[in-house]
Every structure is written in C-alpha cells, then in structure tokens.
C-alpha cells in the first residue's frame, strides 16, 4: 500500500496546487494550463480508485476537447489590453456586480458546508453490493441505459439545445462571400461552359452579357 499512498498524495497535492495556481497566476494562458494539469491529476485519482472509465472520459472530454477550446478562446483574447481597461482606466462597472455574486456564492458555500454532517461508518453501513467480476464500464452502462435512461437522454437534449442556441445567436448570413458549391461544379456540362464565337476583326468579343 506504500506505493499507492505515495501516488495518491502526489496526485492530490498536484491537484490542489494546480487548482490554486489557476486562480492566482497572472497570465490567463498559464491559468488554463494549470487547469489542464488539474484535470489530468483528478483523472489520475479516478483511475487510482478503480474508476478507469470515468478517468479516461474526464481526460477525453475535459482535457481533449473543452480545455482546448478554452485555450483557443483565451489565446485569441487580447488580455493585456483588457487588463488596462479593467484596472488602470476609468472606473469599471464590473467590480460591484462581480463582488455581489461572489459574496453570495461564499455565503451559500458557508451555509452548505456549515450544515454538513458526515454519516458515520459510511462504508460499512452501505448495503450496496459491489460486483467485482464485471468491469466498471459495464456496470455504468447497465445502470445508465436502464434505470436512468430518461435523465441521460434529457441531458443530451439539453446539450443539443444549447448548441443549437449558440449557433443561432452567432450565425449571420454574410453577403458577397464566395462559396464553393460542389454540386454546381460537377453538374456543369460542356454546353453551359464552352462557347464558340467568330471574332470580328478589331472588335473583339464581349463576354458575360
């Protein structure tokens, strides 16, 4: 168990350290990199407790897709310019509203954590039988697609809705943009593309009329 303990403390200290660095580091891009490190160490913790499916999914979804898009957005923002307008320039309107929201969240957290009671002997009192003969991918699937199929499908639909909403909000039809239509290109025939003309001397031809 010694090696197990060493790895557990290594990953958990790494996770806490990088979570702290996310909110304290000066550059936004560094924050995102620490966020990725945090995701990876939490994924490793998942794998250590035997939930290898959850760990891998965390890596694929959060690190492989979500964090890439975060990074993408943060790199495109001109962060230096924004800092100037927030802290140096005229009085910002963001700070009061931000303060209200964060104080509210802090109060909520205090209420929740203050009223928290740990159930005694949670491991022995739980009457859940863990079947070790099947992999946890199978067991997650056999629960998620039977008992919780409605919630699973509903969350999928909500995600789809938000995706469609985001596209509708940002989509605008631009004019005068050249687009390539494969159907048009392929369905052109010789008659519409090539024309034979007798060119009159010293007059030339007029095309596109």
């Amino acid at each position: 168990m010694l090696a197990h303990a060493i790895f557990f403390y290594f990953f958990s200290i790494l996770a806490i350290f990088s979570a702290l660095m996310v909110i304290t580091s000066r550059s936004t891009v560094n924050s995102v990199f620490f966020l990725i490190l945090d995701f990876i160490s939490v994924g490793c913790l998942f794998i250590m407790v035997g939930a290898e499916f959850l760990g891998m999914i965390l890596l694929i979804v959060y690190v492989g897709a979500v964090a890439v898009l975060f990074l993408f957005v943060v790199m495109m923002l001109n962060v230096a310019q924004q800092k100037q307008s927030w802290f140096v320039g005229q009085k910002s309107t963001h700070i009061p509203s931000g303060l209200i929201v964060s104080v509210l969240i802090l109060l909520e957290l205090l209420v929740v954590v203050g009223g928290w009671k740990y159930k005694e002997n949670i491991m022995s009192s739980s009457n859940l039988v863990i079947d070790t003969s099947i992999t946890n991918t199978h067991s997650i699937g056999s629960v998620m697609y039977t008992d919780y199929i409605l919630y699973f499908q509903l969350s999928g639909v909500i995600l789809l809705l938000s995706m469609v909403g985001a596209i509708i909000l940002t989509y605008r039809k631009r004019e005068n943009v050249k687009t390539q239509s494969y159907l048009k290109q392929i369905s052109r025939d010789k008659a519409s593309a090539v024309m034979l003309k007798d060119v009159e001397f010293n007059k030339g031809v007029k095309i596109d009329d």
Partner: protein
Amino acid sequence: MEYLNILINEIYKIIFLVIPILVSVAMIVWLDRRVWGLVQKRRGPNVVGPFGLFQTLADALKYIFKEIIIPASANKTIFILAPIITMTLALVAWAVIPLSETLVLSNINVGILYLFAISSLGVYGIIMGGWASNSKYPFLGAIRSAAQMVSYEVSIGIIIINVLLCVGSLNLNDIVLAQKNLWYVIPLFPMFVVFFISALAETNRPPFDLPEAEAELVAGYQTEYSGMMYAMFWLGEYANILLMCAMGSILFLGGWLPPLDIYPFNVVPAPFWMIFKILFLFFLFAIIKAIVPRYRYDQLMRLGWKVFLPFSLIYVVLTASFLLYFDKLPKGSF
C-alpha cells in the same frame, strides 16, 4: 527492497519498449523518404549506410550539434515544454498496444479509450509551441491545427464506437480476438476508409498538413524551433503516425492475428503480423503523401463536419440495427 525490484523490472520493460520504437521511428522516416522519392522517380536518401538506412541517424546527429535558439519574446517554459510533451505523449500511448496476446506492457480494461485520450492530448504540443513562439505564423498554424485535430477526433471517436458495437469490450486484446473469424475491414470497410483519412488529418500528414503548410505559413507551429527541439517535434509526429497505423491495424486489420489460421500463416509469430500490418498502413500513408495535393482549409473543415461526421453517425445506426436484427450483439463477458 521488494518495491525496488518491481520498479527495476518495470523500468527494464519500459526501456525495452521505448528503444525499439525510437529505432523504428528512425527507420520509418527513411522508408517515408524512400517511398516519396520512388514515386517522384528520384532515389531518395541512399548515401549513408546500406541503402541509406542510417540517413535518419545522421540527421539526428546533425540536430544534436545544432544550437537551440529561443526567441527573446517567447514564453520560455512553455516553448521548451511543447516538444517534450509532443514526444512524451507519442511514446506513452505505446504502453497499451498489444504485439501479441501476452506481449503488452499493460493490458488495461479501457485500452481503446486510453489510446483515444492520448491521441486527443497530442494537440497540446502544437498549440503550446505555436503560442509560446509569440510570432504570427506559428500562432496561425497552432490555431489551424487545434480546430483540425478537434474536428477529426469526433469522427475517429464515432468510428471507434462502430467497432466497439461489434466487440462489446474496450480491451484491445478482446478487440483483436473478436476478429478471429472476420477482420472488421470487411464488414466495416467504409469506416476503415474514413478512419484512415481521419488518421491522416489527426497526424497532420499531407494532404491535411495545413498546420505547417509551407506555402502559406513558412513552417507553421515549428517556425521558431531549431536544433534538437525541432527534431523532437518531428520524431513525435512520426511516432504518432506509427501509433495511428497500430490503432488502425488493431481496430480493422485483426491486430496480431494471421490473415488465415492455416499452415504457412500461423507459423509466423504474432508480433510479426502486427508489424507487417503497421508497415502496410504506413506504406499507404507514405504513398498518399506523394500523390495527393494539399487541401484548402475550408474543404478540410467541410470534409470533417459535413461528410465524415454524418456518414459515420449513420453507419453507427446501420451497424447497431444490423446487429440487433440478426441478434449478433455481443452479450459481453458478464
């Protein structure tokens, strides 16, 4: 003492996995250039060693002795980390590739997910390199590659779902053993083609090498890199290509299984079949590099999102309905 023994044992295994991979990456670079040369009626590298086999080693030696230049305005830490991450991720993924039923470093339950996760992390090396260089062309290359790799990952994921529907397990050995009677390249041939093209895009190979399109972006995300750091990007890229070939041969070509379980074939040891299949897929990669012109960026995106994604989704539905109708769904081991 016991831990030390286990540790030494593991390190010994890892070293004997990593060194052959590095050597085969060097050989594969040579093969790539030879095939490229032959297609264009040139000789390719043929001077250093027999048939020019040591060309890559000579190149590596040259890179080692070159000066590493770090631009003054670059973000130093991330700039140095980027090639290291590319190289490490490319090597780490080989831990789960089975070369035979027993010859595998770690036979984990979610092997295919692990491979998918590692290949989706590959984009970080490129983004970090491009951003940390703090110059225009690398940044443009990094942005392009981020969009490109994320797009094609989606279709690779759905193709993997197709195969998993037929197998009923995420373990790579189970995937290979499920193809004992019929390689999946036959019933899932369209998916094999889509996988191959997506693998080209995922590894930034021509015709999808837009992140380093030399006609537009100098050398893309590698522009500011020099010496050994450039070489690490380059080796990582080829290790990734080999990995994609291995993934293709496990998913579709029956991994380490012989094509037919009869006399002349089943005498050849399993690892050789795996290597033959990887080499065959790599040969296709090399030929494609030589004969296909580069895509335009909007064409690339159109192919990924409007052609491959719907097509592979429809194929998932088809495969599932077929398996359900003929009652062929894998009942699993539980």
